[in-house]
């Protein structure tokens, strides 16, 4: 039944699981991905799920790549079709020569299949039904069972999965046995009834190294713990909710006072996003490190408060897990489309500090760093992650922390300095960096108290309606923003194998696809230097990179080229030199897409952007 031109690949293919939302398949699928990783083969899984709790279709796409490409690839070499609702499109979506795995309990007419793919059937339901009586069990173990079958079909190491199961349910021996049995049932059936392995196989390798496997939101939550956050005000919204769930579970683990079991943190689920950010600002004003996590709609609701924190100069950290927008948009799809609404948040002239993590490692690092920056700069700092990074497990460098490191509380005027009579002007620029000193409420009985407000005031925080005071303040805020350029993470340069006139700028979750795209292009003899922007305001290296290249592609996952607009405005760049490469349909960007667009642009020289696609 395997046919001639069927795909033959080892450690380099995409397998997709089609399931029903809420059917408990995700943990089984995740088990599969981990198994691949444990065998030393880099793996990149992605959930594709609806904005719904139960009953709608979901997919779990696993990219296996010994070469280490972790971006979405596109296409599908093998489909595990467990959802009747989506059978037709699932079958249609298999690459020619690919494989279809299905539950062969019910007979399906040939019309339901394709003759250019290999069909692998296992009577999962039948097996389950005579193994288990309880309906929920039948459902759950069916999932484990197809994993078992896949182990055989892909020639994987059974013991690896066994160990995973044992680790996961440590202590619950019954559960362990039950799962392993189900696994075994599927494995044995395949071994005895199907030609194993098929053309797609997974062989032990050592492509993983010491990397860890975790989702970005968990990493953000952990980063907030390490960054010293003690207060979180939040409101649930997909895809950011798990940031707080992670923060609270890590806090329970690391921040529970050993002596009395009390909490060294406070997490409050607010009534909405206005209250969440209000709490963060109140806590920041009062000297605690505070943050919130949200997504697009929350960013819109917080605008007024962002302006207050900016103008009154209060530290705050906002983790924005971007999703398909505008409005409610595509709440369970990914996008990088909140840059403008964060960078220039709130009415009037404002500029905000942004950080762009590329993966869970940077989600951890930048989330921790954000608190230092927020206190150093006394302003809101935004960590702009997205659903692709945030809600998918990703292989990344292990987290590290330097125990010598101390939190940078920024310019805090102390009780003793005040006592010694040091001049305190809350909004006074004492050393030219635009950053004034602040005091924490309660610092000194008679000195250092001031009145915080969103209105104009003089350098000594006294209410003022004088244009001169206003301009002094705005110019200082501008200097302060310039000071931030050297504090945000520097960009990461990836030079082509040989000097080139072409460059590409990207950021965040585009990184893995960009890296792979560069390789694809190199293979075609197209050389492109790439620069990954990691922070805003933009430091000089970024502008230099643009100056050094004749044409620079700006690769983004939004419709209007938001980073490009910011580069043009902040860097005074001629738009003609920056070419948009935009992917924004809600799916993660792929190397194929990027390479294709760049190649096209360079080939047919249609490189000057068209008016109609202006920002």
């Amino acid at each position: 039944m395997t046919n001639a031109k069927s795909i033959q690949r080892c450690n380099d293919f995409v397998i997709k699981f089609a399931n029903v939302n809420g059917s408990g398949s995700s943990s089984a699928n995740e088990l599969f991905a981990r198994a691949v990783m444990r065998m030393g083969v880099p793996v990149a899984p992605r959930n594709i799920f609806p904005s719904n709790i139960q009953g709608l279709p979901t997919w779990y796409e696993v990219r296996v790549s010994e070469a280490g490409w972790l971006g979405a690839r596109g296409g599908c070499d093998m489909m595990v079709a467990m959802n009747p609702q989506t059978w037709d499109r699932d079958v249609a979506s298999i690459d020619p020569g690919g494989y279809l795995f299905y539950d062969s309990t019910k007979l399906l007419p040939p019309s339901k299949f394709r003759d250019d793919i290999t069909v692998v059937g296992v009577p999962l339901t039948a097996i389950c039904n005579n193994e288990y009586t309880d309906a929920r069990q039948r459902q759950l173990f069916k999932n484990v069972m197809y994993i078992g079958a896949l182990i055989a079909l892909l020639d994987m190491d059974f013991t690896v999965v066994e160990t995973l199961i044992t680790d996961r349910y440590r202590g619950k021996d019954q559960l362990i046995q039950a799962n392993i049995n189900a696994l075994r049932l599927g494995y044995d059936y395949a071994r005895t009834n199907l030609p194993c392995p098929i053309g797609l196989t997974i062989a032990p390798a050592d492509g993983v190294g010491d990397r860890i496997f975790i989702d970005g939101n968990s990493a953000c939550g952990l980063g907030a713990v390490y960054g010293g956050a003690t207060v979180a005000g939040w409101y649930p919204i997909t895809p950011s909710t798990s940031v707080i769930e992670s923060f609270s579970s890590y806090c329970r683990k690391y921040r529970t006072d050993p002596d009395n079991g009390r909490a060294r943190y406070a997490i409050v689920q607010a009534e909405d996003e206005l209250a969440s950010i209000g709490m963060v600002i109140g806590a920041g004003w009062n000297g605690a490190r505070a943050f919130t996590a949200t997504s697009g709609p929350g960013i819109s609701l917080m605008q007024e408060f962002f302006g207050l924190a900016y103008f009154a100069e209060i530290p705050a950290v906002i983790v924005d897990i971007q999703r398909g927008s505008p409005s409610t948009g595509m709440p369970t799809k990914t996008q990088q489309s909140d840059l403008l609404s964060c960078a220039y948040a709130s009415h009037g002239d404002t500029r905000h500090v942004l950080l762009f993590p590329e993966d869970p490692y940077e989600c951890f690092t930048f989330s921790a760093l954000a608190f230092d920056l927020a206190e150093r700069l006394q302003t809101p700092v935004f960590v702009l992650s997205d659903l692709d990074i945030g809600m998918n497990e990703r292989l990344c460098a292990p987290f590290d922390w330097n125990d010598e490191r101390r939190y940078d509380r920024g310019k805090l005027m102390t009780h003793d300095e005040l006592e010694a009579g040091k001049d305190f002007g809350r909004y006074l620029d004492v050393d030219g960096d635009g950053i004034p000193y602040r005091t924490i409420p309660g610092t000194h009985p008679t000195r250092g108290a001031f009145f915080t407000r969103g209105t104009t005031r003089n350098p000594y925080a006294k209410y003022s309606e004088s244009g001169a005071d206003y301009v002094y303040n705005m110019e200082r805020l501008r200097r302060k923003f310039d000071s931030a350029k050297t504090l945000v993470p520097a960009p990461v340069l990836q030079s082509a194998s040989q000097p080139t006139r072409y460059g590409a700028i990207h950021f965040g979750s585009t990184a893995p696809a960009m890296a792979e795209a560069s390789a694809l292009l190199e293979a075609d003899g197209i050389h492109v230097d790439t620069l990954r922007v990691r922070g805003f305001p933009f430091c000089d290296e970024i502008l230099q990179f643009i100056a050094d290249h004749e044409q620079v592609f700006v690769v983004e996952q939004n419709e209007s080229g938001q980073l490009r607009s910011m580069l043009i405005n902040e860097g005074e760049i001629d738009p003609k030199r920056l070419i948009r490469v935009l992917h924004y349909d809600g799916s993660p960007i792929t190397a194929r897409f990027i390479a294709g667009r760049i190649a096209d642009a360079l080939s047919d020289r249609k490189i000057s952007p068209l008016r109609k696609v202006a920002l």
Partner: protein
Amino acid sequence: MTYLAKPKLLAADAPRNALGYTRRDYEGAISTLCAGCGHDSISASVVQACFDLDVEPHKVAKLSGIGCSSKTPDYFLGNSHGFNSVHGRMPSVLTGAALANRNLIYLGVSGDGDSASIGIGQFAHAMRRGVNMTYIVENNGVYGLTKGQFSATADKGSKSKKGVINSDNPIDLVALALQLGATYVARSFSGDKEQLVPLIKGALRHNGPAFIDVISPCVTFNNHSGSTKSYDYVREHNEAVNRVEVILPRDPIETSYPAGSLRRIVQHDGSILHLRKLAVDYDPSDRIGAMNHLQERHALGEIVTGLLYVDSSGQDMHAHLNTVEKPLNQLGDAYLCPGSKALDALNALLR
């Protein structure tokens, strides 16, 4: 007016409290409100209350929203940190501040527009969350700072200065506070310092959400006949259910009173509230009864004032969250950062 320098001279014999502070030490910048504005009397009452309680000014954080009322924190407690936040959002900002440092005294000042219109949601949720604060609404039934539009506390049928009749139902913040879990609920009148000062003192010493609705006439936009928030109207319809006296632990042992006439409530921090019953026989520990009384009298056009409800056994937000005694904003790196070892262990679990 901030434009006039403030006279600094101080009578040598000005009374000083236990901390050696004079009343002047509890004052703030000179008010820029209209002459006769009720809000200024409330500021004066806050000053008096803090002076009487020997509060250390820098241990008070005063927060407000936007409005004439919300400007007042600039006009008292000049040695306290203040935060004039955004319109209607003081409760969340104060909640965050309270989370950061449980050891300060939190005084939230707001207006009826700030709290009952744009801010009603945050008001409600701060109450139900049990934030340990004194929440004062300077209630004049209008938006003073924007020149006299009705606010949500304006009574149905009351007349605006321009002659418009209000047709919407009023929001009674006291009734809401009672319903939503405030554990110290009072109403007073800016024109009656004798009643107001002790109510503020009791609130400042209360553990948990203490709410005081102070009717505070807007002389410029809502002090005409036809208004139910004018000085005259409130004086005529004020029905005080009790008088409060706050006794601090360090005060001399009190003399005995005729039984029944007096009620004694010991607060969480040891301070004692003496409630002298007035007109009606009123039980300030009966929440549902309080709501009932309030509504019935309101239906009769009366304004019930006094300490309407107090529950000294209530738990506050920090108790709910089981946070450590030490203020979160004072925990050092060592208490907050798990360090590299923990991280290595965690990495291991993630492979």
